[in-house]
């Protein structure tokens, strides 16, 4: 029998819906794979075997009864980032603060996945409260990159992307505040999409930086990402920032792009994303991508976005500011950890402080303190206020650029996956990993990362970032699908199948 874990979500769905295989068989194949390799990868924080099998059984029953599948992805397994609430299933956000917490409700994304018949295998590892670029800030230990187990899988959604690259799940959900879907996608050789801000509901997503956080699809192919995008996107009255507009036709765009024709399309190369700090192999891969896109008929021109160089500083003021406010909810009173609660000599404030000391890891504390500083009287205008002005300038850069071109491209990350522990002592060095992804979060437009080959100096995956205007998500899917087809043709198959065989080398 075919190894079910090597198939795409679209292929699996076709086999399940035609009753060639059952959803239960597919779920079991993936649960077996998780049992075999996750000790080495640590992509999952919680595996919900019973829930996954029950969901798969329900899909099989409905298909056997002759009913139409609930969605094009009914019966397909998925790995869910542990930042989204799941009713009755633990949700920790990678933090000790929420260890053992069982949410009493589903996030809207979770609910839509369940209604679509998608089989949720479990919850994936992440940097604590989604703060980080390497998944080393998880309170439950790091995730390892399946391409090289000594390296990081990207962050903060490293667990979701690693699960894809380790063939533990064909689909995953991530959240992207400064690049936490695209950056792990790039360094694990998978597809990661940050939809337009407001395109996917944030209800039930544990908030980090509310004006930037955006949930989105992770997959091994562009079409799979598009299919998942349409399952989770759309207006939600429970989220006041959810856009009440039609979902962009991303599946149709991915299919159109797969014909391999980009003639008539104008693509802009962001000139600011080419200076120092980029690994030579990443730049060479990017140059090759430009040549490929031109061969597909696109016109590629250089575009300047001068304020993008201020995006990283602005982000590291805005995100910590919003985090210091959002994380005030972890106060030891209504849910989560409580330290010192049995000591009658301690008052509420002391219990709160002790709990937050014990429950938060170093990166979260650093950002809470930084945010408290940036928002404090006397510094507000110089830091937070100025950062919000930079945000305006970056939005204007995007507007000007999109008057000249249909989409913008850049490398997704300046380097390939670095070694675990290599950057942990130097926060600024770590923050550079999100250099290219942050502008799209500040402006709220759509962006994605698609595999762009392996770096010639270290053999590790490189990502191509494609950015589109807000609500024009379909444009980047079209470009990504065309690029994917061209690369698969040139290489005689999908790059993801070159990931080392974990079953042979598991430690």
């Amino acid at each position: 029998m075919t190894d079910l874990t090597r198939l795409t979500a679209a292929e699996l769905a076709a086999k399940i819906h035609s009753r060639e295989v059952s959803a239960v068989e597919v779920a079991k194949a993936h649960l077996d794979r998780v049992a075999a390799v996750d000790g080495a990868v640590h992509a999952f924080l919680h595996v919900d075997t019973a829930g996954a099998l029950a969901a798969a059984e329900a899909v099989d029953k409905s298909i056997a009864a002759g009913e139409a599948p609930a969605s094009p992805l009914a019966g397909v397994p998925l790995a869910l980032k542990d930042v989204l609430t799941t009713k009755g299933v633990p949700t920790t956000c990678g933090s000790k603060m929420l260890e053992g917490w069982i949410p009493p409700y589903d996030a809207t994304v979770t609910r839509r996945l369940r209604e679509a018949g998608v089989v949720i295998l479990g919850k994936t590892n992440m940097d604590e409260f989604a703060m980080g670029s390497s998944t080393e800030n998880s309170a439950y230990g790091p995730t390892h990159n399946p391409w090289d187990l000594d390296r990081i899988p990207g962050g903060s959604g490293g667990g979701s992307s690693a699960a894809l690259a380790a063939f533990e799940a064909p689909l995953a959900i991530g959240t992207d505040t400064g690049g936490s879907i695209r950056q792990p996608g790039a360094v694990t050789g998978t597809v990661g999409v940050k939809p337009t801000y407001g395109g996917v509901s944030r209800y039930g997503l544990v908030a980090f930086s509310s004006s930037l956080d955006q949930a989105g699809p992770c997959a091994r192919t562009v079409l799979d990402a598009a299919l998942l995008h349409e399952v989770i996107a759309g207006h939600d009255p429970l989220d006041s920032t959810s856009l009440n507009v039609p979902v962009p036709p991303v599946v149709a765009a991915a299919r159109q792009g797969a014909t391999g024709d980009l003639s008539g399309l104008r693509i802009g190369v962001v000139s600011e994303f080419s200076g120092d700090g980029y690994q030579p192999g990443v730049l060479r891969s990017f140059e090759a991508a430009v040549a490929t896109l031109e061969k597909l008929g696109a016109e590629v021109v250089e575009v300047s976005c001068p304020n993008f160089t201020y995006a990283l500083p602005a982000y590291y003021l805005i995100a910590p500011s919003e985090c210091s406010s959002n994380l005030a909810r972890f106060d030891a009173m209504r849910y989560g950890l409580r330290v010192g609660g049995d000591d009658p000599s301690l008052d509420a404030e002391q219990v709160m402080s002790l709990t937050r000391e014990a429950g938060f890891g170093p990166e979260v504390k650093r950002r809470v303190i930084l945010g408290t500083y940036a928002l404090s009287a006397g510094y507000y205008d110089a830091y937070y206020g100025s950062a919000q002005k930079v945000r305006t300038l970056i939005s204007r850069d995007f507007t000007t650029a999109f008057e000249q071109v249909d989409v913008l491209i850049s490398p997704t990350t300046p380097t390939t996956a670095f070694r675990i522990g290599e950057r942990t002592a130097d926060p600024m060095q770590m923050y550079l990993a999100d250099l290219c992804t942050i502008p799209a979060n500040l402006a709220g437009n759509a962006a994605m990362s698609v595999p762009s080959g392996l770096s010639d100096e270290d053999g590790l995956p490189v990502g191509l970032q494609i950015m589109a205007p807000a609500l024009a998500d379909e444009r980047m899917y079209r470009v990504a699908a065309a690029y994917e087809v061209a690369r698969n043709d040139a290489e005689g198959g999908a790059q993801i199948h070159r990931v080392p065989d974990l079953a042979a080398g598991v430690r």
Partner: protein
Amino acid sequence: MPTISRDEVAHLARLARLAVTDAELDLFAGQLDGIIQAVAKVGEVAAEDVPPTSHSVPLTNVFRADEIVPCLSHEDALAAAPASEDGRFRVPRILGEA
């Protein structure tokens, strides 16, 4: 050039209701100083005539109809509480008296 002292970090941690150890104070004071010097770059382009953007989508108040709809049950709301009593959250004392 902005600087952030060890005492200032301790003060900020107190404002954030975050107990910190001496070792953490040393670590954060050094790191935050570096971060703040790097992010201060935003001041270079933030001119008077640039309006700030707090959010990438224009936000207006979103209201739902004023109708009673099902919500979390009492039990569900209290299920994850560190302590509860008589159907309420039990919290440490807030005022000075024990």
